[in-house]
Each structure stands twice: as structure tokens, then as C-alpha cells.
């Protein structure tokens, strides 16, 4: 038989096998496996000699055929022969099933197809098109949803949302913190309160704001002896005043 077979003409290895079976006028239920394997392999070989890409599926089928062939050649053990399966059985089932769908595919090809054989009226000229309608409408399903999302993120660099990460800092907390510290130590320097090496910039800012807040509430006294000298903080409030101090986030109006 002619080797001039183009693999591209076949939709897959099953399609090629069916062609070989048909052209050899074999009974699909009783495939001459040695013969068909040889032919199949020679076609694949030929393709490879021509340096053509043979798809993995065709090679996979070649391996399956060889496997079946070797099983067929093994002498049947006497006890098992009754129960043992025909090594071809699964392949035959697949071929039969595939053949049915191949026939349906041909039938589909012959059915009158929309926009090829059959046309519908154009609804564009109905006298009632709504104004401002989005014309690029799409039918929607799970696939369309996944597809739309995939297309959107494919074009975008990954995740650069300008999200502001909120640190767990609040001016109110620092007001309490400073008052607590001053209750213990009576007097501390502003530098000590802020010791910049240890705190992040946002901590410094919140500490500063809290200090200003306490000054505004007339609870804190700030003293400085001369320009650029140490700033000293002392509490200037009665215990009663301190007890009433309930710094509230909303009230202080800082985030």
C-alpha cells in the first residue's frame, strides 16, 4: 500500500487506524494486529524520516499497538485462557466509539448550518432600538467570565495596588502611652520619648501628634532652657483630670 499518507489529514491516531483498517478491509472486531502495527509504524517512521513533526499522540498509539502485539504473541496459559481478555479489546472499543462520533461529525457537517446554509432576518431595522445601548453585547457564561478576567490580568503588570498598609498606630494610644510614662517618671526628655533609632517614622509622627494633643488639653507642660537644648516634658494635671482623660479616636480625628 502507498505510504503517501499525510498525518495532518487525520484528526488523531484513532482516525489513522480506522483508515488503515478500512483500507485493508479488516473486520474491526478482529483486527490483524501484526499487520496493522507494521503499517502504522511504517507511516510514522516515514514521517520521521521526512523530518516531520509527529505528534506525541501518534507515537503513544504506536507504543500501545506494540504492547498489544507483544501480548498477542505470548503463548496463552492453559488455565487462564478462558478468563483472559483479548488484548485488543480496549482498542476495539475505543475505535468503535470513535467511529460513531466520527460519523456524527460528518452528519453535523451536512446539517444546514446557520449563516452557511440558512439565514435569519436582521433585527437591526426594527423601529424601536433603544437609545444609547451598548452594541457590543456578548452572551455570557462561566467561560466568558473566566475569559474576560484572564484577558484583563494578562495585560496588566501583577498587583501594584497603591494600598496603604495601616500600621496599628493611633494618636489616642500614644496619648495614653505618654501619660503612662510620665506618671511613672515625672519628667522625660522629648528626645528620650522619641529615640529615633528604635522607632519608625510613623511612630515618631504619632508620638509628636500625641504630644501636641496633650499640650492642647493642658495636661502636658513643655520646657526648654535655651535654643536647641533638651525639651523636657512634665505632667501638669491632677489625678482627677487624668482619670477623665479618655482620648477617643474619632474625637482626635486622626486615622
Amino acid at each position, binding site marked *: 500500500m502507498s505510504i503517501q499518507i499525510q498525518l495532518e489529514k487525520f484528526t488523531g491516531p484513532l482516525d489513522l487506524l480506522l483508515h488503515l483498517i478500512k483500507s485493508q478491509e479488516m473486520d474491526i472486531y478482529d483486527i490483524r494486529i501484526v499487520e496493522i502495527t507494521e503499517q502504522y509504524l511504517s507511516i510514522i517512521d516515514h514521517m520521521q524520516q521526512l523530518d516531520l513533526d509527529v505528534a506525541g499522540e501518534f507515537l503513544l498509539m504506536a507504543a500501545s499497538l506494540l504492547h498489544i502485539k507483544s501480548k498477542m504473541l505470548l503463548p496463552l496459559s492453559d488455565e487462564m485462557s478462558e478468563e483472559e481478555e483479548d488484548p485488543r479489546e480496549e482498542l476495539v472499543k475505543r475505535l468503535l466509539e470513535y467511529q460513531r462520533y466520527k460519523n*456524527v461529525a*460528518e452528519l453535523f457537517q451536512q446539517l444546514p448550518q446557520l449563516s*452557511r446554509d440558512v439565514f*435569519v432576518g436582521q433585527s437591526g431595522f426594527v423601529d424601536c432600538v433603544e437609545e444609547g445601548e451598548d452594541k457590543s453585547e456578548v*452572551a455570557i*457564561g*462561566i467561560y466568558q467570565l473566566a475569559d474576560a478576567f484572564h484577558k484583563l490580568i494578562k495585560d496588566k503588570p501583577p498587583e501594584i495596588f497603591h494600598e496603604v498598609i495601616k500600621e496599628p498606630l493611633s494618636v489616642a494610644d500614644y496619648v495614653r502611652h505618654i501619660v503612662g510614662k510620665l506618671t511613672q517618671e515625672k519628667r522625660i526628655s522629648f528626645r528620650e520619648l522619641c529615640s529615633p533609632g528604635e522607632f519608625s517614622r510613623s511612630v515618631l509622627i504619632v508620638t509628636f501628634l500625641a504630644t501636641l494633643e496633650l499640650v492642647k488639653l493642658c495636661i502636658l507642660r513643655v520646657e526648654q532652657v535655651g535654643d536647641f537644648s533638651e525639651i523636657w516634658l512634665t505632667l501638669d494635671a491632677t489625678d482627677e483630670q487624668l482619670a477623665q482623660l479618655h482620648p477617643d479616636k474619632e474625637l482626635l480625628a486622626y486615622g
Partner: protein
Amino acid sequence: MDNLKQLIEAFIFASESPLSLDRLSHLSEQSKADVKAVIAQLLQQYSAGNRGFYLAEVAGGYQFRTDAELAPWLKALNRERATRFSRAALETLAIIAYRQPATRAEIEYLRGVDSGGVMKTLLDKNLLRILGKKDIPGRPLMYGTSRHFLEMFGLRDLNDLPTLKEFTALDPELIEAEPLDSV
């Protein structure tokens, strides 16, 4: 409604896709029985005499369509190109149409060949749809045909698919037991 027949005819004519009885009844605010009677009249009216188009029952609804025999003439009209189906695409459609819900592994086992690309094309053309995930390990996606598939091939519903001769479905256990990667 004075003239229900006129209205139903206009609805079907003006709609982009086939209109079901339910939908027509809802749109016309008339009982399904009344609408059905009118449709029967229309079906008869359009089948009598050589008309340029007829009232077709398709995809669970009604739609005016031209006769397939006029296709050679109508192709000359400047219209969008018809979808051309490759054999691979038709095979894949055939398998999914008859076996839905079908997983990709089932389709590839039956076809003996990778089908991801073909399936994507069919999904893009809205002929397939994803039906959800199958309740088996790995939860693979399940695929089925869409309404547009019925419209494309002029089928009323899936029962309208031609019955397969000597169709004995492959043992589903075989498919489960022999996924592609182990063949």
C-alpha cells in the same frame, strides 16, 4: 390585545434569537395556550406556498429562517463569513453533544488526541459552555453544548440530535479507569 397573531409574528421577526413559548407568552401578556394557537396558525401559514423564509422551531423557540435550498443564492449577499468547522472541531462537538456533561479527559480519551485548543476555539465561538466542576478527585471542569450550538445546527433541543446507529456507549468506568496519561 386585538391582534395577537400580528404581535407574535413581529416579536419573532424582531428577535435576535429564537423566542420560546414562555417568553412569547410573557412578552405578549397572553396565556401560553393562546400564544400556542397563534403559533400553530403561523407555522401553517408559512409552510403553505413557496415562501422565501419559514417559521423554524429551533433551540427551544421560534425563529424565521431561510430555506437551506436557497443557500447558493443567498451566499452572494455581503455577509459575515460563515463559521467553518474543522473535522477536529466537529468530532469534539459530536462527543460533547452526546455525552454532556463531559470532561476534557473523556473527550481526549475518545478522540485519542489532545483537544484543549479545539475546545477553546469552540468555547470562544460560544458553541460550548462550562457546566461546572465534576464531583470526582481533581474536580475537572464539565463541558456541554450551548444554546447557540442548537441554533447553529437548527436543532430544537438535544433530543433532536440524530440517534446513533448501534450506539452502545463506551463503559464510563473504562474512561475513568484509563485516563489519557496512563494509556
